[in-house]
Structures are given as structure tokens and as C-alpha cells.
């Protein structure tokens, strides 16, 4: 069975997919303090791939810590080249991976979708696959900044897109890739504040595809005002279920001040929690049953509890 764990890594992204053969597929790692490192340290896991949507430290900062865990076998690290080779952060985050690659301990490869999506993993019967659908070489080289060339990775089941990890990609890119589709699960993008949210075409772009669930990985104390209320309310008003890993002051100032979690999904799912923040949902799990992704058994309890918040943005449709 395939299972997706959407981790609470505070302000950052990390998903762990358990493949049918029990190998793990990581999409982003969270930052240097990511709790996924401690969780991985306690098990003898085989990692098929660590795919990084882009190389910001909140998405890739824990890479060296994971690569050096002695109990893991890691086959491949896939990444985007999204900034100058001379960028010190780029060099420092990947120096460990380069050394491991030079010692033939793992494969290091670029994510680059061509005319067809790049297959990152495929089940034996080819009914399921994880593919990079963006960026192409041209899109990557022409991108204005690291966020706009963020890789977009998707889980396909019988040729239908069920889950999408866009990293920090703008909504215009997602619209071009996903228009007309109804993925079950969409991550973010960009911690619930798409970078083109003020663009005149933002609503039209967001409206061009209809996710059932949006999972937003965000820290209670982030200084950026993530997630963007207009984005969360937009998705909520069209019937999409929006779930944030951590509670922000926009939804309940008092609970954040008093550090009162809504539900600690990281604990309930047997994962690990980040040191900081107040959980709204914490981690969340989806399981593939047949051709459908089903949220975990704590989903209803969380929805029930969210209604008790002061101003839950994700419940906007019920207020109206």
C-alpha cells in the first residue's frame, strides 16, 4: 500500500511517501532542525529517492543530516539547479551530497522534465508513478528566481494526478500544468501564500484546477504572514478542505499565545514533532485505497476541533 505522510516541520516542507515495497520516497526534507531526521535515525529504512523541489534551506536544509545517518541506504538524490554554482548556500548544502556521490554511495541527479514528465519512481505494474512535471531545461534557465523554477512533482495513479508537490512554484505554473484536473491533494504552494497571489490572473489560475485537500506546512511564528488569508479562504469557499500543520495568529491569537494545540497529528501518527510552534493539525497522512487517496482516521476529529477556533480561515465557506 502507498502512504503519504505530510510532516509538520514548522516553516518548511517535507513529505515521506511509503512505497508499496516499503522503501521511502522523500519530497523535501525541511530545514536543518527537521524532526524527520530524528525519526529516520530510529529505523533501518531504505530510501528510494530524496527529491528536492528547490534548494531553499526550509526545503533542503536537513539533507546533510539525512545523508549521514548510518542506518539508511539512500539510492538517489534529485535536485534542481536553481541558482548560481557560486552561491555559498548552494555549495554548503550540497557539498555533503557531492562527497557522497564521489564515494559512489548515492546517485545525484537533476530534476528536469522534458517534453514528457521525468519518471522518478514507477510501480512494477506501472499503474503508479511519481513524476516531475516541471521545470523543463528552458523553463529552468529562464526562471527569474529560485521559487519560480521550483520543481513540481506529482503522484500518478492510472494516469490520473492524485497528489501534487509544487514546492514554492507560482500558481501560474500550476495552472498551466494542472488545468482541468482534480487532484486529491495539493501541497501549499509556498506555505499557503503563492508567490503570485497579488497578480491579476491569480484567481483565474487558482480556479483552473480543483484540489480536494490542500495541506499547508507553515510555522505558527513565521514572520511572513503565511498562509495568505485570501488563498486559504478562496480554497475553502470552493469546497476544498484546507489543513495547516501549525496554528497561526490569523486563526486564533489566544491559542497561539497560550500554546494550545488543536490536534497533534505528529504524535497521533507516531512521527516526531518540531521543537517550535503550536499544532493545528501537525502531521497528516493519506493512504492510497484503490485509486483514491483517503485521509487518516484523525481527519474528522481535527475538522470538529477547528470549528472551535476564533477565526478559522479554512472554515470560511461555513461562515458565509
Amino acid at each position: 500500500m502507498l502512504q503519504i505522510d505530510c510532516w509538520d516541520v514548522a516553516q518548511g516542507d517535507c513529505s515521506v511517501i511509503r512505497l508499496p515495497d516499503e522503501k521511502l520516497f522523500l519530497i523535501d526534507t525541511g530545514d536543518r532542525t527537521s524532526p524527520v531526521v530524528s525519526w529516520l535515525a530510529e529505523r533501518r529504512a531504505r530510501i528510494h529517492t530524496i527529491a528536492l523541489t528547490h534548494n531553499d534551506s526550509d526545503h533542503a536544509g536537513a539533507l546533510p543530516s539525512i545523508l549521514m545517518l548510518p542506518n539508511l541506504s539512500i539510492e538517489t538524490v534529485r535536485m534542481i539547479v536553481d541558482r548560481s554554482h557560486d552561491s555559498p548556500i548552494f555549495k554548503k548544502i550540497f557539498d555533503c551530497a557531492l562527497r557522497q556521490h564521489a564515494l559512489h554511495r548515492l546517485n545525484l541527479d537533476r530534476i528536469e522534465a522534458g517534453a514528457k514528465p521525468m519518471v522518478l519512481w514507477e510501480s512494477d505494474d506501472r499503474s503508479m508513478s511519481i513524476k516531475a512535471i516541471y521545470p523543463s531545461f528552458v523553463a529552468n534557465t529562464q526562471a527569474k528566481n529560485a521559487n519560480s523554477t521550483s520543481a513540481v512533482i506529482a503522484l500518478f495513479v492510472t494516469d490520473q494526478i492524485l497528489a501534487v508537490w509544487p514546492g514554492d512554484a507560482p500558481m501560474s505554473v500550476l495552472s498551466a500544468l494542472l488545468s482541468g484536473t482534480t487532484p486529491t491533494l495539493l501541497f501549499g504552494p509556498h506555505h499557503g501564500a503563492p508567490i503570485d497571489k497579488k497578480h491579476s490572473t491569480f484567481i483565474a489560475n487558482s480556479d483552473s484546477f480543483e484540489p480536494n485537500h490542500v495541506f499547508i506546512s507553515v510555522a505558527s511564528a513565521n514572520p511572513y504572514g503565511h498562509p495568505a488569508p485570501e488563498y486559504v479562504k478562496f480554497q475553502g469557499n470552493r469546497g476544498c478542505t484546507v489543513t495547516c500543520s501549525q496554528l497561526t495568529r490569523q486563526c486564533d491569537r489566544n491559542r497561539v499565545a497560550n500554546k494550545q494545540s488543536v490536534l497533534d497529528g505528529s504524535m497521533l501518527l507516531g512521527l516526531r514533532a518540531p521543537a517550535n510552534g503550536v499544532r493545528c493539525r501537525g502531521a497528516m497522512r493519506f493512504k492510497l485505497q484503490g485509486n483514491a487517496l483517503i485521509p487518516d482516521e484523525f481527519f474528522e476529529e481535527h475538522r470538529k476541533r477547528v470549528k472551535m477556533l476564533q477565526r478559522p480561515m479554512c472554515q470560511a465557506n461555513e461562515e458565509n
Partner: protein
Amino acid sequence: MTLAYANAPLISETAAAVFNAAERPRLASNAELGHLKLATALEHWHEFIFDHNRLPLEGGRINLHLQSPIKLRLDTISFIFEVVDWGIKVDVSQVAELPALLARRFLELFSASENDALTTESRTAYIRISDYINFSQFSVDRAPARYIEGEVISSGKTEIIVEWHDGKRERLRDNIARPLSELIKGDRFSAWVKLNSENHVTNIERISLLPPLSEQHNIVTHAAD
């Protein structure tokens, strides 16, 4: 740590409360409301607050921090303590075992959740218990040391500033900085570090010097070619 725990008073005025419980007057509020049936039932119960906010785990090596007070209900007829929401009942004579029983209950459910083996019943119980546990602190306390790379930015007698591989800088002082005392400005190193609940480094060990930053980044840019 464990011994100290066992000898400490577990519940506020436990002994007095237990032995005086039967003589306590009926709860006035219930009588005033005329809830006679309820009052009759309630007079056999007395509630206490568990006096500790942490439970020792792994022989006291780490603690399970509680973020809400645990309520105990004493049946004054049977002299059985019930831990509200935790599904634990214990005879009053065994009340000293309560910290261990609470810790064991948490471990049972946590292990089941790790193995995806929670039943419908245990899942409901675990949700209730999760409201009492500071799981972030538990995650931090339980976490093993993690590998990290850094560069010494400045080095003094009692203080070292390092820049970690993600570009964040941290000022390390005194005992925490001491393991890096042989390093000089500009040295790149790897180490295994423990982090605290503020994500600051609290312990550094297994230090190695790293070679200058690799010039092999072409591998990355041309690996797919």
C-alpha cells in the same frame, strides 16, 4: 531521579484526603440544584490534581512533559483512583506506581501509533491523552545527535561563532563551544549535535575537519547529460 520521584508526595495531601474523604459533606452545588441522584453518586467521588508536570521515562533519562494537569478521581467506597481520560484505575495503596503507569500507557499507545496498529478504541483514547502531552518536548528529548556541517566565523576564548551549512549563524559559549576550541577562523567541520527546544545547539561531539568546499558541482549540473 526515579527514587526521588517515588518518595515525593504524588498528590496534594494524599493521605489526609483519602482517609477524610468519607466524612466530607455532600457537594453543596449539587444539592442546591436539586440533582439528588447525581449528588448521591458524586459523594462517593473526590477529584484531585496530579501534582507533577513531568513523568520520568527510560529510567529518568528523559521526561514526558505534561501540558495540562491530570485529574484523579477517587472512589471513596472502593478506594480506587481513576485517572481521568487515561483509562487507568489503580488501588489507593498502589498510588506510588502512578507515574510509571501513566508513562507506560503513553508508551503503549505511542508504540501502537508508530506501528500503525491503533484500534478504534485505542485511537479514541490516544486523542484524549494527546491533549495532555507536550509532544514537541518529547521529540526533542528523545532525538539522537544529528550530523551537521559548519564553518568557524570567529573564535575567542569562551565564545565561537559558527555558520551552519544552511547559512544560519550561531554563537556558542563556554562548555558548548569547548569541543571546537582547536578550530580556527575559516575551518570547515562536521559534527554531531544535540538541539534543545529552541533549536539551539546544546552539545557537540565527533568533530571532523572538512576539506574546502567541493569544486565538483559540475556533477550536479551535468549529471543528467
